[in-house]
């Protein structure tokens, strides 16, 4: 619809421009013609010149024209008479005076010839000291407007009248355009609407009739083609996700055996330490395969929208604490101590999230620290409002800042960390990547991609950086749903 309006506006613009151009061209043309008309002086001017050129003869016996004036009269084929002012008789005339021209005049006949003609000859007058000079031109040389009188109001309102004319003309021409193009516009409108609908992925069907039926048919075919392609794409995506889900399922039982036996061997005191160490490696790698397959499965489901997220207001602090507790509980060797460096007592930050997915993302980050620091590392966890208001325990102060719209879950370690290049590569990666290696030789990628996918499900983002503690730092930034709820801080005894 907007495009049609734009089209109409464009036409109106072109029309206005055309008007202006036409007006200018017409004025120019008229000026040229009129100037040519005036180039020979015009009949009134000739009459004036002739009146000025009549001279009394020295002997008092009449009048005579100067030779130049006579030549001018002959040039335009005009005759002339000089009428005496008192007697109203002809006192001088040219030789070629037609016989039908009277020799005596009355006041009314002089008024008539001044306004019009004598026997069809257009006449023009000019006064001189000796009377009235009357010039008669050939019959078809001039047309005279005999009653040139105008209503005064009309003349006074000429500019408005011209404007009215211009507007009326414009409206009439626009109506002609609309009428002429109505059918075209009617045909274009559904096609334009259809083209605008296509990018939204919705199917389009337009009636194939009217001026642009061919175009409508092409659009319908395009829509059909897109629909089929979408269906095929969706089918392939579903098949791929199902395949990954199938592999992920089928690998679980055999992997259970590998992990189970490896764990038993690892703890079998009869075995020599070297063998136990090998079993530990098998166990660790099996766990990595388990995490990889599980991440791949979830990532593919999220990517193909096969796992609709169940977003509810959730307490991020509780989710992160539970994930941290689960991680510590599973860390039997205590090689990966977790330190909570957030505010204590902690605030309950509420965000819209899928509890299970967010928990998974946080757990992935813990495992990331573990996987890339085989010799152990300390993991630092914090949950805070983004905007620097985290160091306060006051609900009012937090509430008062009004600038904290994000909740930051930060998991960092004091382990090996990453080089600047690897960090940059991770930040810019939009697809699952297997970076060449980090310092421990383990690829980062799918786990972090999954974290990013999960953050995006909640409308959040992921930030990666070097940690102040020396290792790698990942922050999940989630939009805060409401201001943090403070603990029942001040009137209960502190531990």
């Amino acid at each position, binding site marked *: 619809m907007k495009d049609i309006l734009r089209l109409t506006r464009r036409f109106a613009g072109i029309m206005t421009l055309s008007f202006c151009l036409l007006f200018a061209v017409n004025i120019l043309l008229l000026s040229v013609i009129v100037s040519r008309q005036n180039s020979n002086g015009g009949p009134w001017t000739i009459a004036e010149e002739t009146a000025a050129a009549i001279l009394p003869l020295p002997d008092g016996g009449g009048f005579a024209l100067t030779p130049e004036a006579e030549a001018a009269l002959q040039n335009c084929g005009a005759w002339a008479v000089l009428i005496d002012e008192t007697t109203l008789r002809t006192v001088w005339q040219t030789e070629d005076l037609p016989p039908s021209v009277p020799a005596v005049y009355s006041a009314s006949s002089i008024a008539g010839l001044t306004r019009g003609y004598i026997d069809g000859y257009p006449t023009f007058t000019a006064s001189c000291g000796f009377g009235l000079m009357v010039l008669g031109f050939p019959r078809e040389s001039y047309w005279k407007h005999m009653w040139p009188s105008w209503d005064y109001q009309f003349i006074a309102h000429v500019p408005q009248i011209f404007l009215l004319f211009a507007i009326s003309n414009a409206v009439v021409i626009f109506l002609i355009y609309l009428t002429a193009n109505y059918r075209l516009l009617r045909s274009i409108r559904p096609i334009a609407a259809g083209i605008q609908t296509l990018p939204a992925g919705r199917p389009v069907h337009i009636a194939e009739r009217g001026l642009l039926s061919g175009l409508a048919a092409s659009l319908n075919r395009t829509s059909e083609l897109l629909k089929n392609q979408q269906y095929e794409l969706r089918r392939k995506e579903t098949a791929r996700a199902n395949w990954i889900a199938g592999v992920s*399922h*089928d*690998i*679980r*039982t055999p*992997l*259970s*055996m*590998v*992990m*189970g*036996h490896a*764990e*038993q061997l690892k703890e079998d005191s009869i075995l020599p330490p070297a063998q136990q160490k090998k079993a530990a490696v098998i166990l660790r790698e*099996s*766990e990595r395969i*388990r995490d990889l397959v*599980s991440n791949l499965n979830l990532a593919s489901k999220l990517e193909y929208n096969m796992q609709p997220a169940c977003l509810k207001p959730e*307490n991020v*602090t*509780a989710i992160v*604490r*539970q994930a*941290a*507790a689960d991680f*510590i*509980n*599973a860390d*039997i060797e205590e090689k990966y101590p*977790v*330190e*909570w*460096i*957030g505010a*204590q*007592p*902690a605030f*309950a930050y509420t965000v819209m999230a899928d509890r*299970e997915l967010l928990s998974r993302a946080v757990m992935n980050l813990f495992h990331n620290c573990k996987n890339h620091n085989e010799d152990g590392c300390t993991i630092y*966890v914090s949950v805070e409002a983004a905007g620097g208001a985290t160091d306060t325990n006051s609900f009012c102060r937090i509430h008062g800042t009004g600038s904290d719209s994000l909740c930051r879950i930060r998991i960092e370690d004091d382990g090996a960390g990453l080089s600047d290049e690897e960090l940059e590569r991770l930040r810019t990666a939009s697809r699952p990547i297997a970076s060449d290696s980090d310092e421990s030789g383990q690829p980062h990628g799918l786990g972090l991609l999954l974290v990013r996918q999960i953050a995006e499900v909640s409308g959040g983002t992921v930030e990666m950086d070097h940690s102040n503690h020396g290792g790698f730092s990942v922050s999940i930034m989630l939009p805060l749903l409401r201001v943090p*709820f*403070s*603990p*029942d*801080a001040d009137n*209960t*005894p*502190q*531990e």
Partner: protein
Amino acid sequence: MGADYLKQKHILLVDDEPALLALVTSVLEQEGYPFIRTAATAAEALSAARASAPDLAILDVMLPDGNGFDLLVKLRVFTDCPVLFLTARGEEEDRFRGFGLGADDYMVKPFSPRELLYRVAAILRRTYRDEDPFVELSGCRIDLTRAEVIRSGERIPLTAKEYELLSVLSRNSGRIVTIDALCEAVWGDNPYGYENSLMAHIRRIREKIEQDPSHPVSLVTVKGLGYKLIPAKSGQNAS
């Protein structure tokens, strides 16, 4: 990992994969559970359970002659024993279905044998708590049925909230229980804002169970995260 009487419980293990049955049996036996019966099909499992009702059933979901969910329904006709699903099916709807049928826990393969042992121990402890209601700690024992701490022969009563907290902590003894989980257990569905109250209650519990409450050894704080109840090692109890 668990009290000795719990090790005497009969466990029924159902999985169609013989190698996995062997593995889990071996893991449980090594941990000290001698009474393990295995079944590879739903029919075998039913027949074994009818012959002698198990104290705990570990079920796979996909079985050659049916599925674990149906098997659980059939088991429920004649036994209320706790059930743990151990399956490759990790989808949310599967887990919800399992829990919806009354399963006590749901583990997805591949699993860590150690985690399985923890979960088995937790289920048994929870289910058969009344058979031995004492929680042995370093320096005291807690009698959960009477809500008392027994220290040096003296019986110290627990308040309702202290009892709730110790119940949750003892069910997860040796593991961190988060501040949020503890608050939820004591103050219900809207537990936000009770963190300082929780600290106060923990301090009072320590006064009852610890020899030196300022330097706790049985109920330790995991900074920022939660608390952990450390069970006494064998023979360590001083009550």
